[in-house]
């Protein structure tokens, strides 16, 4: 079972819900939590865990080998990203623009652009007392999150079998990194807050999930703040509201220190139980 936790707007509680739900579910199930917000991975800040494995992650980029190069310029012509250019008697490669499509390399008549590994980030596997946790972190200056997300998901699928509940902490927004992080999920939980920004952005996230034909539900965080427009919107559009996490300064304070909530704040535990009940009644959980 794969559950992705996403949101249109950042800062609505994705990481809070991911870490708390993972920890809560781990009382009764085998769980692996994966932080796919590779640009700003935060889940690990809330977990006491021990590192068990780490590896560098690479993307493939072309490297110019001038020995046999005839400077025909084919590489520049076939690169749609302007990542390979010919200047006078040189071929220059711009790694941050390269999408690793291999066209320049494989279509080079003299094999002068072999593909080499270029580090784009790190993957780390941790163990907490009760569940596994995997995080990937994009190197600063690398612009593309998608290749790292892809490789992280491959790692999860090779390391953890279907007995595990796989929880993905997705990146914010609605663009390509979010699609990559949610497209394999069996169910997506969209977390939002009851403010005009929250409403605007959750509608974008809902439209994205509908476009992807995903099953999804909404969790309202900081419930009691703002207004009731989100509840109204979900009701009118038949979108299930799975839980409402109350707006409490105490929660914000615990969060600020990097602490989990469900074992300290009974209302949070009650709301997590509602989510689990929903997942069970929809056969998403045993």
């Amino acid at each position, binding site marked *: 079972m794969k559950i992705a936790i996403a949101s*249109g*707007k*950042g*800062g*609505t509680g994705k*990481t809070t819900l991911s870490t708390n739900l993972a920890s809560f579910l781990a009382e009764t199930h085998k769980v692996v939590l994966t932080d796919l917000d590779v*640009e*700003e991975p*935060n889940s690990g*800040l*809330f977990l006491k865990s021990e590192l068990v494995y780490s590896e560098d992650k690479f993307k493939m980029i072309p490297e110019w080998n001038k020995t046999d190069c005839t400077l025909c310029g084919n590489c520049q012509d*076939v690169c*749609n*990203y302007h990542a390979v250019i010919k200047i006078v008697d040189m071929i220059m490669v711009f790694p941050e623009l390269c*999408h*690793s*499509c*291999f*066209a320049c390399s*494989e*279509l080079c008549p003299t094999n002068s652009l072999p593909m080499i590994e270029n580090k784009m980030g790190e993957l780390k596997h941790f163990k907490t007392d009760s569940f596994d946790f995997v995080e990937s972190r*994009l190197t*600063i*200056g*690398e*612009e*593309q*999150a998608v290749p790292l997300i892809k490789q992280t998901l491959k790692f999860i699928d090779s390391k953890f079998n279907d007995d595990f509940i796989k929880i993905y902490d997705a*990146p*914010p*927004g*609605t*663009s*390509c*990194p*979010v*699609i990559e992080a949610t*497209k394999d999920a069996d169910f997506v939980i969209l977390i939002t*807050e009851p*403010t*005009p*920004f929250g409403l*605007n*952005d959750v509608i*974008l996230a809902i*439209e*994205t999930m509908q*476009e*992807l034909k995903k099953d999804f539900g909404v969790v309202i965080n900081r419930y009691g*703040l*703002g*207004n009731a427009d989100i509840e109204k919107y979900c009701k009118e559009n038949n979108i299930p509201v799975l839980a409402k996490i109350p707006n409490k*300064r105490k929660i*914000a*304070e615990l*969060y*600020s*220190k*990097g602490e989990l909530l469900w074992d300290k704040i009974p209302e949070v535990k009650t709301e997590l139980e509602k989510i689990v009940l929903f997942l069970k009644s929809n056969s998403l959980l045993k």
Partner: protein
Amino acid sequence: MKEIVVISGKGGTGKTSITASLAVLGGRDVVVADCDVDAADMHILLQPEIAKSEDFFSGELAVIDQDICTQCGKCFDVCRFDAIDVNDGIHIVNELSCEGCGYCARVCPVDAITNIPLNVGKWHISNTRLNQPFVHAKLGIGADNSGKLVAHVKNIAKEIAEEYERPYVLVDGSPGVGCPVVSSLSGAHFVVLVTEPTVSGLHDLKRVYELVNKFHIKAGCIINKSDLNLEKTNEIIEFLKQENIIHLANLPYNESFTKAMTDCKTIVEVDDNIIKETLEDIWKEIKQIIK
């Protein structure tokens, strides 16, 4: 003309609320640009009237003409993005996975594949309710190339500022450290970092500052919700000192930000409160710094 970019690394720190407040304080001096094209929210507070809208094309999408295709599978073999689906022997492009590299079209032996320009969103030039030029955009669902749309929004805002002699372009940047943020930062004269005293706020601030540092842009920081965790606030202040980042101000945890937002207003328009005064001081200080 000077360009001020507001970013935060982490979402939900109050970046957009603060940027919109600075926009109100800047009045006729500023052209406003919302470069958080993925989840743009500034229009909610500035209630713009759209004067001009245009589609934005960037990148390409492969399309297979089934009348010509011989289903040889060469496209499937070369695609590194798993973007060619095979259903009952028929090769189809998966539009969400295709990254428009064009490799498939180049190797297709019967020229059945063409690349069409991709409409990735819309951009607008508007007038805010305060009568300021406002450039904003909406990225299409699942679209790539948000960095290019960000660059476009910024360029249009700069052109307007130059033509109408407005001294400042004020940019609401995007979250994270990837391509949209890189585009938001390029060419900026001053960066305002909005953070909060939480473990994740500080963590994300450090990462995004590493990026700012690569661009050698002068930066100032606002610690929002500063009384939520005084220990973390002090830790942030320590970090700012270490890195020579100007500590612009602390703003207390205050739900009037949200109350203002539900009325579609910025906090500086609500009433005479301490936050309003602090934001006025911040705006003055920023102007002084980039003079």
